């Protein structure tokens, strides 16, 4: 899954790329209104006041098969639903569920304290709460004449 290039459209060359990327990713928003009737978003990132909440739909997983990694402002969720569930003697009349490997990397909207993160897996939903880090005070640099 693509993570967006910095939203700040400051530098001229990157502005075109960011606009192009936003247009591309936003074109799926129109489809969203249609698909909304059929499926809940796979992953949701909610930027709250004190923390960032990430909720992912991972039905039928074993907690041991779920991995959550945080690097700087990016969170990666990996989960496995073994293909062995689909045994050969099963005759599928209808197959809509997906099995196998799931991996998604998202950009969090704010700096978070990964050491204070909490992840809970309940009823097939993975809920991760990440407290926001305090924005460090600016450091003044003295100018030496």
């Amino acid at each position, binding site marked *: 899954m693509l993570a967006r290039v910095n939203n700040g459209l400051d530098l001229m060359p990157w502005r075109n790329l960011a606009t192009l990327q936003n247009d591309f990713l936003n074109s799926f928003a129109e489809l969203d209104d249609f698909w*909304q009737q059929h499926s809940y978003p796979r992953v949701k990132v909610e930027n709250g006041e004190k923390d960032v909440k990430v909720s992912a*739909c991972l*039905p039928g997983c074993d907690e041991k098969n779920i991995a959550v990694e945080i690097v700087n402002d990016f969170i990666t969720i990996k989960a496995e639903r073994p293909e062995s569930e689909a045994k050969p003697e*099963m*005759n599928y009349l209808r197959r809509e*569920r997906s099995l196998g490997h799931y991996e998604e990397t998202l950009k969090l909207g704010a700096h978070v304290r990964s050491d204070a993160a909490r992840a809970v897996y309940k*009823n097939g939903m993975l809920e991760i709460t990440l407290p926001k880090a305090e924005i460090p005070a600016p450091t003044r640099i003295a100018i030496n004449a």
Partner: protein
Amino acid sequence: MNNNPQDKTAKYLTFTPAADVIEQPQGWKILIDMPGAGEEDLDVQLNDQLLQIAAPTSLTHHGATVKYERSFQLSDEIDRAQIKATLKDGVLEMSLPKAESARVRKIEVCRAS
């Protein structure tokens, strides 16, 4: 029941969950992915041949509570009294065994003497 997701005043937002229907020699199996649904609120009803599954969740989307709903038309070969359902980790597993009378009975063919 309001199915229009654009209506922000709707209390419930109904989604159709993904389902697998598997046929096995002894009957059928239905697996439905319903993340966020718990056992306590699961509602499964069988009216005549229509199996209706409904599960509200504690999830919200655009200010409305998310609810899963799906129905299946069942064959009359199914032994209704033996239908079982379990909901674990957001996956509903239903087993619908075939009635004895509907099971395929192999008849041996003997050579005429």
